[in-house]
């Protein structure tokens, strides 16, 4: 149906705003819309030529109007297709940007890209839907188009460059407020001496220290310390 391809792509764009990772690039659908647009353009060129002929040989006004109407429909349809394509790609680019800010590596492994095989536009790829909000948590390179892969690399470079002006700030750092930078901990089991910028302490069971949280996170995970 009329404008159906564009609608389909826009629905896909709407869907992916809610996903925590980017689904497979809809290359077939994009290709079909580009083709449809070029076909429409051929019609438009034909209609424009016809219009010129009509103007050269004054014919009835009705014919001119009919031609103009056809031309409008064709042009509007092309513009609509363009808007759908751009909105789709923009939505994906936003997700790629968001991913780059996380400062983690994309997934390269073929198997872990969940909808590798689902490049059929009719299927809904089984991407993990996170209902809370659509923030990106991971990105499979296999789901990107070639152009998007290039874009990802370029944006990473731009970010590295921008961040280098604020080397002390760790711009990709946590957006949670820094509370409890220093914490009280209790030693749960004996262990070795621990060196930190704030000095040395020994892991002796039941002793307590006031330490920088980031210095002891591993020891807490390993069960040597607990936060009081």
């Amino acid at each position: 149906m009329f404008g159906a391809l564009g609608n389909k792509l826009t629905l896909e764009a709407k869907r992916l705003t809610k996903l925590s990772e980017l689904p497979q690039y809809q290359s077939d659908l994009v290709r079909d819309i580009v083709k449809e647009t070029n076909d429409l353009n051929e019609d438009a060129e034909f209609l424009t030529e016809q219009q010129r002929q009509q103007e050269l040989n004054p014919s009835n006004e009705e014919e001119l109007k009919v031609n103009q109407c056809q031309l409008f429909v064709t042009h509007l349809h092309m513009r609509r297709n363009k808007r759908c394509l751009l909105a789709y790609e923009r939505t994906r680019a936003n997700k790629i940007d968001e991913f780059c800010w996380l400062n983690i590596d994309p997934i390269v492994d073929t198997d872990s890209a969940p909808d590798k095989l689902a490049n059929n536009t009719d299927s809904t790829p089984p991407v993990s839907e996170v209902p809370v909000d659509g923030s990106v948590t991971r990105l499979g390179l296999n789901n990107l188009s070639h152009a998007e892969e290039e874009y990802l690399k370029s944006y990473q470079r731009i970010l590295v460059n921008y961040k280098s002006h604020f080397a002390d700030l760790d711009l990709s750092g946590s957006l949670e407020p820094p509370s409890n930078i220093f914490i009280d901990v209790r030693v749960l089991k004996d262990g070795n001496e621990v060196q930190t910028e704030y000095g040395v302490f020994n892991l002796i069971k039941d002793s307590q220290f006031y330490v920088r949280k980031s210095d002891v996170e591993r020891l807490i995970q390993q069960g040597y310390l607990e936060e009081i």
Partner: protein
Amino acid sequence: MALPESLTYNLSPPEISFLSENEYITILPRYSMKKIELIGEKIPTLRGMRRERVPLWVALILKSQDKCNIVPPSWLELDFLKMKYEEEMKLPHKFSALPWHWLEISKILLAKAPDDLADPSNKLKSIIQDLREIRLVKSRKGLKELNESNIQLDGLSFMEINELRPYILKVMDKLMNLHDSISRNNVEAETNENEYEDGEASEDE
């Protein structure tokens, strides 16, 4: 995007709590300590038992190391809060005056310095909960009155405002969009638009 959607035009409760730690509070140092030149503030030399005003976040570090006691703010007190609660009951269309950060600061002090408070923690917690609820009910009723132009919200604190913010903004913006869809209502918007465009306003077909 460079900032996650959830933080765009929005603050999280931990963030507001973080901001509340910038408020000043009185401490009673237990020991002396040399002054500290901070970027924002100079923390004066502390002497035992001599009161000083410091940012709450500094007070919390000192407190955690038993270097000081925190002098609770005068409003964080059972009698005062009960009085406020009665005010809330008496005046159904008005919010009683409470500090800008009352929810955050009371929560922080109840967690980190309960021994410095004049009244038992459980009683304080319960009156604070009651106050929060009566004010929430009141504000929710007030939300019936939203319009497309402007409203005044005096008496609500930062945390309370923040909780209502997404709803209020999204409703008012939508009412405005509906309102402005009528060209007569949108005359000014269009004039602004043209100024914005620097005279390059485009022609419709």
